[in-house]
């Protein structure tokens, strides 16, 4: 959740490995670039260019890591004065030894004047990354609230406010989804004052409670903060999906309806449909009747069931890593007859699912796509995308293209070995 924030130092209070794995991994891209040399900006943006940690050693574990943490924060801020703030993330190691990172954050803030946040969510404290999402939401909300009381000048000024301010919540700018999504909202006449948290500056996030409406895209990882802002500041929120033609149109309509901008929304939707209809018609023809299995975190399952239908495909099986009850309600509401649903499957269950359902395509992340490929089933990376952006109208063409490429690659013809595919009944026999 914190990683996409573009202008803060992300400091992992842990042994080096914990930080190393998050470094340049997920494609939450940003446009905030420090100078690498006097004449050249860095190769990738700040939030994915540097990976900082306290590199906890045995002696730190025994004697506590607070001193080291404070020193590390102060050094990081001295080394990167262009950063506007810093987030301290704890992990199993520092959570278990019980370092008081909030105290350190307050001290560092006092000494440096930067915006210092903490995110305490050790891996061993919960079931999955979903717990981490929840922790970040509640802790971040609490901290911006306190910060606004402490430093009221950080609130949005009256001059900056417009009657059409929204905050887009649960959008992480995977592969520059925002490059597609932002203009859609701007064209209907609303202003995205903040995005939680894709490519967003920390100062804008402090102003989240100053908007008129929150628009929630990822309703698993970030709806919590929309609820809290609603309770605390009386700002309503709406739930949307920005994947697929109908869902994106619906999202724009819902947002427009709140502000009375319906006419402009219809114009934008009609224009966008026109831009993509020819390409999508090509893909609908190529993809119709294909059977799809989906295994992602949670919400994308129900975001994408409808999208697959728009492309003429049928979802035959879905599985989620960290979906909650409300996700399953949404999945069930969208499920075609006979669709298999699995909660948090292990690799074995995934294999069985693929073997039994024999989908033509498996939408899944990096870790599962290779097992599917070994079974001869095409995949599309559904976490960080193959070649995104995938969101919105235009992104849908990219998505359809990557699906088409996966399905129609000549490679699948050669998987049966030197003598070609076995006769149909033989094939059945070999799998039983």
């Amino acid at each position: 959740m914190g990683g996409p924030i573009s202008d803060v130092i992300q400091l992992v209070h842990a042994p080096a490995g914990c930080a190393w794995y998050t470094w340049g991994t997920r494609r939450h891209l940003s446009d905030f670039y420090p100078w690498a040399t006097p004449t050249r900006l860095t190769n990738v943006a700040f939030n994915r260019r540097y990976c900082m940690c306290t590199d906890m050693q045995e002696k730190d574990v025994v004697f506590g890591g607070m001193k080291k943490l404070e020193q590390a924060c102060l050094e990081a801020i001295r080394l990167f004065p262009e950063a506007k703030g810093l987030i301290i993330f704890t992990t199993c190691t520092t959570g278990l030894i019980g370092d008081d990172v909030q105290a350190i954050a307050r001290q560092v803030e006092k000494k440096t004047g930067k915006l210092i946040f903490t995110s305490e969510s050790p891996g061993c404290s919960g079931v999955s990354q979903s717990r981490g999402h929840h922790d970040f939401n509640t802790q971040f909300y609490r901290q911006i609230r306190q910060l606004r009381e402490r430093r009221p000048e950080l609130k949005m000024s009256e001059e900056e406010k417009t009657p059409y301010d929204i905050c887009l919540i649960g959008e992480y700018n995977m592969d520059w989804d925002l490059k597609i999504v932002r203009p859609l909202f701007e064209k209907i006449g609303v202003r995205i004052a903040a995005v939680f948290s894709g490519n967003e500056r920390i100062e804008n996030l402090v102003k989240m409670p100053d908007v008129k409406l929150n628009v929630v895209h990822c309703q698993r990882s970030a709806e919590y903060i929309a609820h809290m802002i609603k309770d605390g500041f009386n700002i309503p929120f709406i739930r949307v999906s920005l994947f697929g033609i109908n869902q994106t149109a619906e999202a724009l309509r819902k947002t427009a309806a709140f502000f009375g901008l319906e006419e402009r929304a219809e114009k934008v939707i009609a224009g966008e449909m026109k831009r993509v209809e020819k390409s999508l018609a090509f893909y609908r023809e190529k993809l119709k009747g294909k059977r799809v299995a989906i295994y992602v975190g949670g919400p994308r399952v129900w975001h994408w069931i409808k999208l697959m239908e728009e492309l003429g495909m049928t979802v035959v099986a879905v599985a989620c890593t960290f979906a909650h009850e409300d996700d399953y309600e949404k999945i069930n509401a969208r499920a075609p007859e006979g669709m298999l649903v699995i909660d948090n499957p292990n690799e074995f269950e995934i294999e069985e699912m693929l073997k039994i359902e024999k989908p033509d395509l498996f939408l899944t992340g990096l870790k599962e796509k290779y097992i599917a490929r070994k079974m001869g089933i095409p995949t599309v990376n559904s976490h960080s995308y193959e070649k995104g952006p995938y969101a919105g109208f235009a992104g849908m063409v990219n998505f359809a293209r990557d699906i088409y490429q996966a399905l129609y690659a000549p490679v699948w013809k050669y998987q049966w070995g030197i003598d070609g595919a076995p006769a149909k009944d033989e094939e059945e026999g070999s799998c039983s």
Partner: protein
Amino acid sequence: MQLKEIPVTGIPYDQIKIEKVPAAPEYCERPAELIPSANRAVVINPNRTCMPLGAMWAVLGVRKAIPFVQGAQGCTTYVRYTFCRIFKEPAVIATASFHEDAAVFGGRRNLVEGIRNLVVRYWPELVGVVTTCSSEIIGDDMVSFIKMARANLRKEIGPEKADQIPIVLVNTPSFAGSHVEGYDRASRAFVETLATTKGEPNGKVNIIPGLFYPGDIREIKHLLRHMGVEAIVLFDISDTLDAPLEPPTSVPYYPPGGTAVGEIRDMANSLATFALQPHAGQAGARYLERKYGVRAVVGPPPVGVQGTDAFLKALREITGKPIPESLLQERGRLVDSLADTLHHTMMKKVAVMGDPDIVLGVTRFVLEMGMEPVALAGGTASKTFVHDVEAILAEAGYEGEPPLIINGGDLFEFEEYLKKQPRLDLIIGNSRAVDISRELQVPLVRVGFPIYDRFGYQKRPIVGYRGGEMLLAEIVNSMLDYQYPDDRTQQL
């Protein structure tokens, strides 16, 4: 997105080109005293990852073996993720999935039930239990937990079946070392647990390759085949992490290959153990030497002319077998290539980063090419690294500016040092050096762990004479691609 119509090929990349927003009006000079990693508490861009990864890497090189990670899910997920990114292969790793109750009451139940579930579903030939920071801090008594798991298994599936599945424990608290040490510890844990009976001499040699890739292990096997030497390769990832796509067969999927448990047991009966990467595998080799008198040959990494020479000479000495003409010809071809390219390698300024053994092997090779090392960054701190680098420089008769040697440090120190150098022609290292090479506008030749941003490096050897030829070609061609005018390359 100003396109009137989105073409069938999707949004062209130039349409999503991002305007870079400068974080500051101008370049911020980083405070000089905070550049050396020894002067600061914050680590920036670590040149190493966590200890459990090395142990999991090792277990995945054993036939039909599954690592079982005693920790939270992330410790497994991130490592699987890393392996998938590098090898483009599935990596099945089980997790004890610690939640709050495990953190409070310990991970006994997680291990006992977890191993039970793993065995009855997957029927692995071996389980490698890998500990993590959390289980080590909580203080899980892993030896007795594993005994309980074994007793529980015997009850459920019968003693005969249960006892056929060895459970090997590797203790890997990440705050005590890096992935290199995790592999090293695994090498010892496996021979200590399994190679317990001294039987008939088997006439074989043991090879512990260290964190070399499938392509490297295949090349080592090629050398052994030509030498006529039989070997036990412990942890043989050459097939398990580079498997063919074949018609689907049964569930669950096991990749082909890997070191069989019986072979590991037999390692006590071998002529010698070669630890090709001294920092990753030496512990196993030394244990076999101490306990069973199996001679340990530790390093040097068989990279370049002298590295490969040393490996083959040691093999010749130990097995009494001559080095065949076929391999001498391979050597001759590598030497020939060095002669053919010397005008493009001599006096070139090079920086090398990565795991210490990769840096040592590659540094020796680039010195054979007449290059001049500017900075050498070994990510895992080691007692021997600085001494080894100095010995290699002395052996080569290197008389240029002494390079910066970073023993452990981080990549921020490495890159800030390089930015201050008047000249640099090349960086050799892993994918973590991509940004540095782009910003300094020098080519990067990819070697070592991890390489995730390009395809095929895990299949292409850098070891042996043939691997050396390939690496040399890559080095020369990268520099030519990057900086040499095309009107002069008609006669290299």
